[in-house]
């Protein structure tokens, strides 16, 4: 879908870390806004392209943001401008705004992980682990195999139990008890499945000394170029943060340092970093429509 499918997983990891670490560290809307914007633009573009935007997930994210915003002032009474008093505790404007920011930050982080999921093919991601800890990589692979299987089994068992009338007991206590035994049946099945899978692994020589791996990823010149761009932009961002250029205070009053030239550079660098997935998506779109027009 995007250029990233061909990139070395290390580059993607670098991008993810250099977007997420500064934004979580700085707690500044100057970084949160571009981070959120970058993720939303990319996911929206992808969603429109693949027609896979679900209203439910948009609603879910909005609800999450709203909850964090509304709840934060209940826990944090810092801030100097009370909007109202609940049980004698102030519900302040600063805490409300901080909640809004916190919600946005949370969304940004969640959405970036979602971006990462669509950007990196699964096997590439585990290649990184595979290098460091091959056993862990295999474990993750078997877990990834098992989870959808367990979900399907749960549906089947629930359907089977429904049709022998376990769940339509008029007594709610019996109903709950049945739900519990269904869970325990699933656990039994999982253990049984684990034994069978273990046998299948042993049958195919798992445990022999000197295991090797199929997957090899080459770190090419395009990877090097993209990685150096990412590192350069990150360096500018980190420098700005270290100099306190984007310092932002929420309590007791909202105060921001007036941006100097470095802060502007830092913001631009960070924004560019956040837009890399979207820009690469646009580039691919243009390239493919250009190719198609020649066909």
């Amino acid at each position, binding site marked *: 879908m995007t250029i990233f499918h061909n990139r070395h997983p290390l580059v993607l990891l670098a991008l993810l870390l250099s977007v997420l670490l500064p934004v979580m560290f700085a707690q500044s809307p100057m970084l949160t806004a571009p981070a959120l914007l970058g993720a939303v633009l990319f996911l929206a573009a992808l969603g429109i392209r693949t027609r896979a935007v679900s209203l439910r997930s948009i609603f879910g994210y909005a609800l999450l943001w709203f909850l964090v915003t509304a709840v934060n002032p209940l826990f944090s009474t810092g801030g100097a401008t009370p909007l109202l008093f609940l049980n004698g505790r102030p519900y302040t404007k600063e805490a409300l705004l901080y909640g809004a920011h916190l919600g946005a930050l949370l969304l940004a982080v969640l959405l970036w992980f979602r971006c990462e999921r669509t950007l990196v093919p*699964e*096997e590439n991601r585990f290649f990184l682990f595979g290098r460091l800890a091959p056993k862990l990589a*295999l474990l993750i*692979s*078997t877990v*990834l*195999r098992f989870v*959808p*299987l367990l979900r*399907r089994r749960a549906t*089947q*068992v629930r*359907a*089977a*139990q*429904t*049709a*022998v*009338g*376990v769940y*339509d*007991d*008029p007594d709610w206590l019996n109903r709950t008890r*049945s739900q519990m*035994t*269904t869970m*325990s*049946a699933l656990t*039994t*099945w999982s253990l*049984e*499945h684990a034994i*069978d*899978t273990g*046998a*299948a*692994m*042993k*049958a*195919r*020589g*798992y*445990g*022999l*000394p*000197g*295991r*090797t*791996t*199929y*997957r*090899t990823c080459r770190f090419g010149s395009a990877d090097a170029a993209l990685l150096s761009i990412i590192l350069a932009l990150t360096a500018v961002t980190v420098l700005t943060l270290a100099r306190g250029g984007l310092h932002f205070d929420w309590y007791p009053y909202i105060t921001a340092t007036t941006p100097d030239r470095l802060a502007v550079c830092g913001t631009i660098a960070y924004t560019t970093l956040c837009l890399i997935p979207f820009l690469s998506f646009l580039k691919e779109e243009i390239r493919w429509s250009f190719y198609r027009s020649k066909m």
Partner: protein
Amino acid sequence: MELLSVENVTFRYPKASVDALSNVSLSVSEGQWAVLCGLSGCGKSTLLRLIKREIAPYGEASGRIFLGYSAVRGAKNDPPLGDRESAENIGIVLQDPESQIVTDTVWHELAFGIENLGLPSDRIRRRVAEIAAFFGMEEWYHKKTYELSGGQKQLLNLASALVMNPRLLLLDEPTAQLDPIAAADFRNVLRRIRSELGVTILMAEHRLEDVLPDADRIFLMDSGRIAAGGDARALTSFFATNPHPMAQALPAATRVFLALSGGSVLIGGTDSAGDTASFDGTVPLTVSDGRKMLRTLVKQGPASASAGATSAEASETEKASASAEDSAAGKVAPEDSAAGKVALEVSGARFRYDRLLPDVLSGASLTLHAGEHYCLLGGNGSGKTTLLALAAGILSPYAGSVRLFGKKLSSFAPGTLYRGNLALLPQQPRDVFTEKTIREDLLKAFLRTAPDKAAAEADMLSLCERLRITGILDSHPYDVSGGELQKAALAKVLASRPKVLLLDEPTKGIDVRGKDELAEILDGLLAEGAAVLSVTHDAEWAAAHADRCGLLFDGEIISEAAPGGFFDGNAFYTTAANRMARGILPGVLTVSDIVRAVPEVTP
């Protein structure tokens, strides 16, 4: 040269009172396709697992097993087979496609075995590429393993075993969980493996009709012993003199041959010895062999015999068309038919799993009468199981309705629909069990309808006696054989005394004896006025036991008739006996039909 030799192997599971294998000896030559057949529980799987040392069962074993000159198990001075050699040289594919898959993607699954052997990356890639090309897997090479169909999963398991370049391939009922089309695909791949790669195959199987024509050697196992061994003809002659339940699992043509030669129509026939001589050495194994045999039989004899044949043919045709008319009439006005009142009615049901997905059912209608056994047939993914889920009230249609005794399923009060009205036996019988022993589980089910514990226990025991499963009541549901578990699940389903029983693939993975027992139980229920709707791929089963059959295709039931009219009208989706007798003996559905018809037309 013998590739595999098993010498005097005896095995006993811990705490068991009898040997699972006793003094088993057999040998398989390089490049042969050998089949181990026998009823479930005869020791086939145990033997295969002993040969594949990594997954050998725990227990007391004696005897020797050799792969070539190396001992899989043997005496002290036998050269042992190393762990690496065992992993590399012996591949195994088991019954359940799901539990043998280790990783999440197809490519990784293929690579897994050779990764374990520690080959360098480029060698691994080459082997994986080769095997993927051999199996034509390029299309689904990057898929997730959980997205595959059952048939694809089993092919993946086969490919993952073959990628190690094994000399011996062990297969434990590999097609038992597959539908007929996927099973045929699987067997085709096996044929290619044997002929193009020369891999030696040892396969445990209880459905002989599909493997007999390919097998070089067949071993019949019975309670842990080898009862007979040899090629298909030798086995057939063994069955001719020794009655054995496995004879029912032979191909239709062979069963006809056995039945007729037993009645000396074929072998040792008095007046037409010249004609039948061609059958003496060649036992028919396939439908085309069977057709040749029938043609010879029906055409032989003087003109009077052929006149007899035509008159028999005419009367059979009349009968068939009459029965077709009967069922057509039944379809138009089911209320007045003698079959009984309408028990379950699905009308114009439409269903899809997601708004964006296409319809699975697009206006399916079906009527089930009390006392009637309706078999719903259809290809893979035609929506059979979905229709059953709608009928059971697990899913609801977005248009159309499902009524039980004239009442919508949704208008049944909680706690009434699944008590005394409706029950479903799912495709995986283990899904209905949640307790540690079958007894606890059944007792709980009976307690929901019985007034007190003593009554529940008495009801349970009497049903279990009828189903002949009292012996397994204290076992864990995972520890009993497929057929036994099927019956135990049926007992649990019947605990609520349903008037309508829905069965999803009731004969899947069950041996011939299990099928007969199941049919007997269902006949008893039908006689008591219950209605049975079973979804099945098993045309033979439907032909023998259904009152009415329906074909589900493209989301609708496109034809519906009594088995006679239904199967006789189908060209492909029909029984082997019908395909064999098509155009020779009309109106024939089962082997016993042929056996009954043949003496009429021969002099």
